[in-house]
């Protein structure tokens, strides 16, 4: 009976997810895949071909956009000396018109590399609230209409938390907890924050070393979810409500790409790519390792029976079962954004401001290189049949007519 109720609850939770939402970094379920979406494969910001709208953005930001219901949410930061002014912006997904803007003063360290910004982490949402997180470790919770629900200054609480190169780990919502990973040489920790009150459910110490990876989420067969945290020391899994460590896997992970979980497996940026079979309540077991299907700065993307990584400027497609390389396709540029997959195509956006569309199948083939006209570092969002890209200066919606 208990198992049945759990299953019902899990199903209900899934139904609550709007298919048209893209609620956090790499999508609502953190896989980077919008299987049912159909996007234009060719577009041109200059001529407006398949560009629904572009809207200017203030300040700086390398965070990705998220989409909840009919709104696109973006973070930005500005400031003359340090980027100590934080912005949360909401746009009408249909028109691109700004619906509201909220500003706050950063309470933590605002320094970062010139190519980054205080607005580096992608915001997250539970469908009712927006959780905007910044390199300064300010965590803002607003409702969809811009009303402030709560505000945490996590570096105000722990003043040595910060990395003056900039931090970029994105928050992840798991159930009623928003998880933040704040790893650096100073106060280094991960925390689970109550989505409703902003109170700390749990806080655990983390290695005292810089880490830009974001938390992951593993959904077990019974619908239970675990928070996945990676660092140079390895992978740990935690209860989202208590932070209790359920198991660990000792394999030093890369400190830029993030862990992906799908189909009962964990795709770990470690030793190239390490793929684990998730146990039900127990530690995972090694399925395979590959030094060819290797994520660079971008995180691995899993779609059906294939796993994709951007290794430098090569998109690698591996067999999800054993890691065999099925094909490789050169995609030029420097990539920070994780590719997103919509239908039969991967959209790879490089720092130089080009979106390369790759036809997926028996072989991969770049079918178009689309100029965006400005640098892009954040991972795009896919919602419905539209692609949302946060450029250095503009938010861009790519969609066919009437989308």
């Amino acid at each position, binding site marked *: 009976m208990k198992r049945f109720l759990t299953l019902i609850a899990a199903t209900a939770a899934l139904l609550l997810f709007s298919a048209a939402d893209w609620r956090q970094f790499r999508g609502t379920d953190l896989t980077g895949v919008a299987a049912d979406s159909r996007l234009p494969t060719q577009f041109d910001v200059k001529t407006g071909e398949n560009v629904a709208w572009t809207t200017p953005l203030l300040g700086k930001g390398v965070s990705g956009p998220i989409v909840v219901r009919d709104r696109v949410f973006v973070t930005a930061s500005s400031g*003359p*000396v340090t980027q100590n002014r934080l912005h949360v912006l909401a746009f009408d997904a249909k028109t691109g018109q700004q619906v*509201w803007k*909220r*500003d*706050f*003063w950063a*309470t933590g360290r605002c*320094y*970062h*590399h010139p190519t980054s910004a205080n607005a580096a982490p992608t915001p997250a949402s539970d469908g009712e609230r927006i959780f905007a997180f910044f390199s300064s470790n*300010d965590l*803002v919770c*607003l409702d969809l209409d*811009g*009303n*402030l*629900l*709560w*505000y*945490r*200054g996590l570096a*105000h*609480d722990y003043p*040595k938390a910060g*990395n*003056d*190169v900039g931090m970029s780990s994105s928050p992840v919502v798991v159930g009623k907890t928003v998880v933040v990973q704040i790893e*650096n*040489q*100073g106060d280094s920790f991960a925390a689970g*924050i109550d989505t*409703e*009150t*902003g*109170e*700390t459910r749990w806080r655990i110490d983390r290695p005292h070393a*810089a880490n830009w990876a974001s938390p992951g989420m593993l959904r077990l067969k019974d619908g239970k979810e675990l928070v996945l945290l990676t660092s140079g020391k390895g992978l740990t899994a935690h209860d989202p409500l208590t932070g209790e460590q359920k198991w660990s896997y000792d394999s030093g992970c890369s400190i830029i790409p993030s862990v992906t979980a799908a189909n009962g497996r964990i795709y770990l940026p470690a030793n190239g790519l390490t793929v684990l079979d998730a146990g039900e309540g127990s530690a995972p077991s090694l399925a395979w390792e590959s030094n060819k299907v290797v994520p660079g700065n971008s995180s691995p993307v899993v779609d059906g029976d294939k796993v994709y990584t951007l290794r430098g400027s090569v998109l690698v497609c591996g067999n999800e079962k054993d890691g065999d390389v099925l094909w490789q396709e050169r995609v030029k540029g420097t990539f920070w954004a994780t590719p997103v997959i919509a239908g039969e195509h991967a959209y790879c956006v490089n720092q130089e401001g080009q979106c390369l569309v790759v036809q997926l199948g028996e072989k991969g083939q770049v079918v178009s290189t689309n100029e965006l006209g400005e640098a892009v570092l954040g991972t795009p969002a896919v919602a419905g049949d539209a692609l949302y890209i946060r450029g250095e200066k503009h938010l861009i919606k790519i969609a066919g007519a009437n989308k």
Partner: protein
Amino acid sequence: MISRTWILAGGLLLIPCLLAARGADAELSSHLKTLRAVGPKGAGHRDAVAASQAASKADPSQLTTILAAMDGANPIATNWLRGVAEAVAQRATVSKALPIRNLESFLADTSHSPRGRRLAYELIAVSDETAESRLIPRLIDDPSLELRRDAVALALANAAAASGKDAQLAAYQKTFRSCRDHDQIKQAADKIKQLGGKVDLPLHYGFVTTWRILGPFDNVNDKGWDAAYPPEEKVDLKAKYPGQKGEIGWIEATTSDEVGNVDLNKVLDKHKGAIAYAYAEFVSDKAQEVDLRLGCINANKIWLNGELLTANHVYHANTSIDQYLARGKLNKGKNTILLKVAQNEQTEEWAQEWRFQLRVCDAIGTAVLSQDLPSAASASLPRTVR
């Protein structure tokens, strides 16, 4: 006769309105008190979540009450209050009910918090295109850095537009004295130099430029970070100590760098896994609270008069002016500043720097200078700067 009746009737009608207004004020006041009570680590959140939502429904005429609640509020509570104020202002902007006059009065009153006043200005500027030209120029020496910055930007633009080299130079020199943000300081300084004028950047910033340096002590495997080498117990400028590679003593070093950088690789030679101490004396004409602002790409500690103000155990993760802020109290007369600057053993090219820059200033970055500075320029400065 008629007027008396009408006055009486009007008065009777006003009473419920006044009572309602007083009730609304009391209600808002209670919510604001709850929001101001928000503390670190989520303290006070449960009550504040409800108070924030209730206060966001306040009447636009109460905006300045919300802004006034920022006075003396902690940085977290200030952001809660900002969120409330912006929600109220958004409604007011749509209905064209922003209380512009009240906001302008609030802006003019420097007894209010700099952030509250800045937000007041931003709200005015949303609906009044003339706000910048009307209100900003008079704020060039404002205690709000954000307001001052806008005023300096206008003054710099006016200086560029002045006719004639002499007029430009005079305008830039005048504006330079009000600059507190680094980019504006640099912009004004560059222009003054281009026009044949002189600037003393270390003096403007308040950088300490003359130090006594001691090192290297051992920091292999970071073990020197927690080790209290002799200067942490007592500074004796004549003493000799066993260092990492032999006997060491204090060396005087004066930097001529425009932003006060002391390059320890030049003063002590290149050392890895090493600790250096830097010592300076600072004469204050009064007891006063100051900022000691450090830029340092190495792990560091700062002591003022023997009291440890800050410790930053971070190696090679970027640096900039004012990277670390430490608040301390100067005594009247002689004060001592001691730095510990730790270099690790990273081998990357970008991990070879071993340097620091430290300045003494007030909370908005106005230089506080040692009274024994052998500088002719300092003697001519106004008291607020000197």
